[in-house]
């Protein structure tokens, strides 16, 4: 297997190295990729959509249909991970509780779950004491990470950023909470049901904006027609349409990241995690 692999890799590499002879020099102004459609985007994006960040304008407006299906792919990946890993039938397994004052650990086999009390703390089977510094720092840090994520989504028109990046940062903040405390804390704050609903709601917002455009008499995802309901001119309507779409993308990406992490780290039980 190793020798066959090396032969295939060397063959593919040699062919590609041979093909680089015909490439334009690195950074050439007249390379084929930079001559046809991209100058038009660069010249017209600002006056047509009022969005200075050309990447955002092309992503959500000129190529909005492409991005819609990319979002759907992410949604499908989240659903696929959920179906593959999630187990619903919970065996009444072993549970461990720790008395906080005396640090005595109780081991309960099966049976009913004791109600939440301030004296006992439920712990995982592979439990190590959580570090106070890490716990406190992460708890203080999470709101600021979320604020930054909202800024990234909202300011994607004028600076690098947008729905994908902001959504991933929002998801990462909840994942940070799950890692620094434990998975149950994160799921208490942000339940699985809400998360799975949000996964669908994001795609729904995206396609919904497209459908509203149809209902207003224009093509699918043609944001210019939104000027009738938003009471702005056609150029600003495109800018606002891009913003709405970015919100939908952000919600879906956030929910999918959290869902994949929760299912992966708890092997589908959503009970004990990393």
């Amino acid at each position: 297997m190793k020798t066959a692999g090396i032969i295939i890799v060397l063959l593919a590499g040699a062919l590609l190295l041979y093909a680089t002879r015909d490439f334009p020099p690195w950074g050439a102004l007249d390379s084929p990729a930079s001559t046809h459609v991209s100058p038009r985007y660069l010249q017209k994006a600002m006056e047509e959509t009022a969005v200075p960040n050309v990447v955002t304008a092309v992503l959500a407006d000129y190529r909005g249909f492409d991005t819609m299906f990319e979002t759907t792919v992410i949604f499908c990946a989240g659903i696929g991970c959920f179906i593959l890993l999630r187990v619903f039938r919970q065996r009444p397994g072993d549970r461990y509780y720790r008395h906080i004052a005396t640090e005595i650990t109780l081991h309960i086999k099966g049976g009913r779950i004791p109600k939440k009390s301030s004296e006992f703390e439920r712990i995982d089977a592979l439990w190590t004491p959580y570090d106070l510094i890490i716990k406190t720092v992460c708890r203080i840090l999470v709101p600021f990470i979320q604020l930054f994520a909202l800024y990234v989504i909202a300011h994607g028109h004028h600076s690098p950023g947008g729905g994908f990046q902001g959504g991933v940062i929002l998801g990462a903040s909840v994942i940070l909470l799950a890692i620094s405390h434990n998975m149950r804390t994160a799921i208490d704050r942000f339940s699985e049901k809400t998360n799975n609903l949000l996964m669908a709601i994001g795609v729904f917002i995206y396609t919904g904006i497209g459908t509203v455009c149809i209902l207003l008499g224009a093509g699918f995802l043609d944001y210019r027609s939104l000027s009738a309901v938003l009471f702005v001119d056609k150029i600003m309507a495109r800018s606002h349409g891009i913003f709405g779409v970015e919100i939908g993308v952000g919600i879906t990406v956030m929910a999918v990241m959290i869902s994949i992490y929760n299912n992966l780290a708890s092997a589908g039980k959503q009970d004990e995690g990393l």
Partner: protein
Amino acid sequence: MSELIPLIVAKYNYWLYIILMMIGLYAMIAKNNLVKKLVGMNIFQTSIILFYVSIGCKKGGTIPIIHHGIHAGRHVVDPAHYVNPLPHVLMLTAIVVSVSTLGVALALAVKIYNRYKTLEEDEILARLRAK
């Protein structure tokens, strides 16, 4: 010799991307562990994304955010001053899709481990044949 150095400066980027791609492809074919194969797949993916982004580069070009604001005024945009935004758009979505497909692949790896108690490819095949 004098014409070799401009050639190397013009093309070395592409050669190094191809080496990166070869590393990823080798890991996908020859490595025995499933997680190692996934790492190889991701290296392969990033090398291709790198190639796509690099064909949008322009010498002397700046980031594709049009100069704007109160003092910017209305001026004609010269495309030569900004790098090509189109590969960025396509690859930005590709990165996020790649991480969600990585999640699905890791979910499959966890399922396989739960069933066969190993991540090595040859041991899994041996157990499949023994059945």
